[in-house]
């Protein structure tokens, strides 16, 4: 089959690889109809995630039709149309039973390695390094889905791929980021990053009833898309983040802050961004933390910081004094996708939201490698790329 494979920094290739096979009776094989490039795939592209191996198939946003099931799969049959959550979940361990699906205790088959790095491992993920299980990803024609009875979202045939594809990651990720803020009708919610996850954070915060939603970025078309969804745009190239947020909150600061950027935040001409870039280039820290520092600084005391943005390891110069003295709550984690998807499928089906608004490019899988470059450089108005195998 054809797939997009990682071969090193900035090096993604469209190549022929062996077809996946059932390896466990609980597996299913999915014939992928649509997949997408996620912002967090860029962290792999830039080789910021450790334990990638040359030839690894990437991609964790995908959907398709079941073409084969293992002997112990009970709730799926050949021909079913499913979206696959990026977090692999057994559905039986203590964490899964509590709804903490991204912390599944059994799905990471490289648990021993992950335990050494994280203390205790989280769930296995598709196409996201050997630290998260080394599972082949979904930017491919076919994918093996472990624990298939639990690791799927069934979707109505009345909805198109474009409407449901993002149930596997970015929609529930934006939703969980907003839910973690425990939004009150009096709250101001500020979202750093108007990328695909940021866009879903905006819509989620609006649906959940925030008084005002503000989005911070410097890409005009992304800001206009966020504004269309109900956010007040703040272009950090043109105005002071602190000044504008204080203006919009009567000098008190936002109660709820969401980091939808993660480890590659960059602000031109910002001393801390330059400092981070140098340290990251010299392998002296893993992640650039400008957004985290700014969130901690601007947030109203007693507020909440929600962090759906991906971080990989060590960061530097985190103002713990501000965090502690302002009594800020920090909520983070990979998304517990399946915890939210029944509700979100219903909202899409009822027409409350059509997630396809975010798609700006739809091309064949063979054009995937070049789309990584275009998406990374935000060229051609690129916000979200869908690939068709």
């Amino acid at each position, binding site marked *: 089959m054809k797939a997009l494979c990682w071969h090193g920094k*900035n090096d993604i290739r469209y190549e022929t690889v062996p077809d996946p096979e059932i390896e466990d009776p609980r597996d299913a094989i999915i014939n992928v109809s649509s997949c997408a490039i996620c912002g967090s795939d860029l962290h792999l*592209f830039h080789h910021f995630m450790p334990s990638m191996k040359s030839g690894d198939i990437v991609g964790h946003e995908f959907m398709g039709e079941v073409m084969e099931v293992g002997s112990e799969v009970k709730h799926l049959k050949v021909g079913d149309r499913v979206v696959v959550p990026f977090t692999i979940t057994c559905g039986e361990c203590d964490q899964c039973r509590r709804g903490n699906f991204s912390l599944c205790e059994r799905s990471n088959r490289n648990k021993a390695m992950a335990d050494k790095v994280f203390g205790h491992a989280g769930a296995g993920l598709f196409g996201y390094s050997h630290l998260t299980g080394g599972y082949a990803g979904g930017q491919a024609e076919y994918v093996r889905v472990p624990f298939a009875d639990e690791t799927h979202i069934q979707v109505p045939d009345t909805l198109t791929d474009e409407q449901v594809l993002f149930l596997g990651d970015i929609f529930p990720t934006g939703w969980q980021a907003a839910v973690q803020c425990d939004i009150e009708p009096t*709250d*101001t919610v500020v979202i750093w990053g108007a990328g695909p996850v940021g866009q879903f954070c905006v819509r989620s915060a609006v649906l959940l009833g925030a008084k005002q939603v503000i989005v911070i970025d410097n890409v005009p*078309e992304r800001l206009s898309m966020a504004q269309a969804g109900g956010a007040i745009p703040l272009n950090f190239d043109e105005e002071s983040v602190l000044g504008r947020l204080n203006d919009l909150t009567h000098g008190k600061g936002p109660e709820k802050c969401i980091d939808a950027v993660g480890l590659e935040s960059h602000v031109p001409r910002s001393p801390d961004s330059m400092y981070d870039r140098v340290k990251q280039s010299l392998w002296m820290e893993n992640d650039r933390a400008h957004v985290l520092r700014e969130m901690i600084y601007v947030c109203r005391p007693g507020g909440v910081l929600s962090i759906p943005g991906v971080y990989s390891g060590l960061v530097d110069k985190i103002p713990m004094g501000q965090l502690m003295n302002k009594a800020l709550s920090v909520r983070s984690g990979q998304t517990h996708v399946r915890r939210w998807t029944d509700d979100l499928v219903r909202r899409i089906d009822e027409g*409350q939201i059509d997630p396809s608004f975010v798609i700006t490019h739809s091309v064949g899988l063979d054009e995937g490698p070049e789309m990584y470059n275009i998406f990374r450089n935000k060229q051609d108005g690129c916000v979200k790329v869908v690939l068709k195998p």
Partner: protein
Amino acid sequence: MNRSHSYMSHSLHGSDRLARGLGWFSIGLGLYKMLAPRKLTEPLGMEGFEPMVRACGAREIACGVGALSTNPSLALWSRVGGDAMDLAALAAALRDKHNPKKENVGVALAAVGAITALDLVCASRIKKRYAYQAGPTPDYSDRSGFPRPAEAMRGTAGDFETPRDMRAALPSPAKSPGERVTPTTRSPNG
């Protein structure tokens, strides 16, 4: 798979590979200049300029690290600037009447000139490929994702209740007028 298709199916272009090669070359040359400056100054008749050569070595290493980063554009243009400085220094050495090794300086000038051309070609191509936000700025102001204006959608998910484990640790400071919370116990010292 034919060859041209295979090339198009790579995210890494020829200019990226060249940038990478120049990056490693820059680091190697920088280390050589830092660790053995006399091995360069002596054959060029430029004894006494070792501190300057060391400084150039540090510059080369910095540019090399930059050229290996996710966006090598700035580092490659820095290399072009560095090349210009090297060419100026070598030209001065060539003009020096007392320099007994002008032949070597000429060879060095030609070599640096060739590398400058390579750096220039690579930097120009990389600049175009990595141009941030290049291309048209589309209008996405009609992409709300909502069936009605966003203001009308505010609070539509009011039927959703935040799960107990995801409620804020503290009462929202914005809740107006705010519930008055009274201490449940008082210590003898108040």
